[in-house]
């Protein structure tokens, strides 16, 4: 729903950040299972317990309308197996003969539990629940309903397979639902997955291939963020993207770029692009913000 004016809960982000900085204890973050590091994907959550600050920008030109989205979130580990996330987006739409609109989307909070981690099999999984709060964003772009979003995230490396050329490959995914509290808004099934081929894994654990910087830190991947409507007149209709790209993993941050190719005409008719920077707060600030509050 679009409205001309904006009103934000200006006190909320600094308050959350201040709360997140209170206290500290040791430990890690990153989605690591054994010798497998799962990078943060651009379109859905990774399966780890985070201490991170991702910024994701996406641009799409469709039907004469330019759509820009700057997503940002911050994740703080509370214990080594439990973290909390605060997130929002800044949205903008121009063109198409319509008034330009821009503003903050509704504010969201989330909690993630690490439910399994097996280093020997490079397996990792987490359960996540997010709540998007109605009326916390700008009137111009926000939704007037709140949404619960339970989700299961998983990652599986193929380091144990016999064919050595397949060992750098990993699969991550997420399956969950958006459950809005407005009976007129459809519930959605979210099912996302990615295929990743890690050059660092290839060179560090399988076979040194002579790949030099900056390519030696890259992971080519393809993401499939998909959504299927569950009711309210759109039952069974699926939208989504095929998102091929690459993620570069450094010491303190990663960056990534991906295309967004619609899987069908219902999704859209144009190819978009995404850029992301994800700051590893557990590495940037291992003794304060990056530590869990309780060990």
């Amino acid at each position, binding site marked *: 729903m679009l409205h001309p004016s904006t009103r*934000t809960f200006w006190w909320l*982000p600094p308050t959350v950040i201040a709360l997140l900085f209170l206290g500290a204890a040791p430990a890690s973050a990153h989605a690591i299972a*054994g*010798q497998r590091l799962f990078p943060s994907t651009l379109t859905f959550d990774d399966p780890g317990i985070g201490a991170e600050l991702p910024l994701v920008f996406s641009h799409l030109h469709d039907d004469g309308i330019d759509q820009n989205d700057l997503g940002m979130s911050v994740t703080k580990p509370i214990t080594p197996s439990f973290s909390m996330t605060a997130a929002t987006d800044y949205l903008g739409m121009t063109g198409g003969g319509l008034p330009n609109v821009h503003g*903050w989307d509704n504010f969201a909070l989330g909690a993630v539990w690490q439910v399994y981690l097996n280093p020997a099999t490079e397996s990792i999984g987490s359960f996540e629940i997010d709540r998007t709060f109605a009326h916390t964003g700008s009137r111009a772009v926000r939704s007037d309903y709140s949404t619960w979003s339970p989700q299961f995230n998983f990652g599986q490396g193929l380091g144990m397979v016999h064919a050595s050329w397949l060992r750098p490959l990993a699969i991550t995914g997420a399956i969950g639902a958006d459950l809005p509290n407005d009976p007129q808004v459809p519930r959605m099934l979210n099912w996302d997955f990615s295929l990743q081929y890690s050059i660092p894994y290839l060179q560090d*654990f399988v076979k*040194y291939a002579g790949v030099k910087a900056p390519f030696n830190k890259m992971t080519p991947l393809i993401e499939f963020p998909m959504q299927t409507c569950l009711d309210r007149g759109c039952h069974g209709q699926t939208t989504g993207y095929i998102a091929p790209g690459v993620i570069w993993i450094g010491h303190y941050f990663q960056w990534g770029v991906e295309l967004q190719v619609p899987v069908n005409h219902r999704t859209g008719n144009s190819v978009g692009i995404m850029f992301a920077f994800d700051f590893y707060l557990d*590495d940037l600030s291992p003794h304060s913000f990056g530590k869990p509050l309780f060990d």
Partner: protein
Amino acid sequence: MRTLVGSFILLIALAATPAAWAHAFPDNSSPHVGATVAMAPKEVKVWFDGEIEPVFSTLVVKNASGKQVSTGKGTVDANNHVLLETPLPATLPAGTYTVYWSVIARDGHHTEGHFPFTVK
């Protein structure tokens, strides 16, 4: 809007303020990962992309039957804290060997891994 942007800038600044070391991952090794060498190496060396703790970092080499062939648990070079190394016996028979490393970065983060090499 300014408040939110300011909050994130503040967050990045706060996060980046303390000394940072990050997880340690291999940068290079001798022999190379997966290499086949004509002559048995006298030692195995692994260089990491960050400094590692000498006390808690280990490097061992095992043969195809799982028997350790290196001596001790490996040592971090006293003058180069990114280098973990272990000597090998003078007479290392032909075969495939696996290098197991486990390191603690200076900030306490643990990483581990293993890789093969073959002596012809």
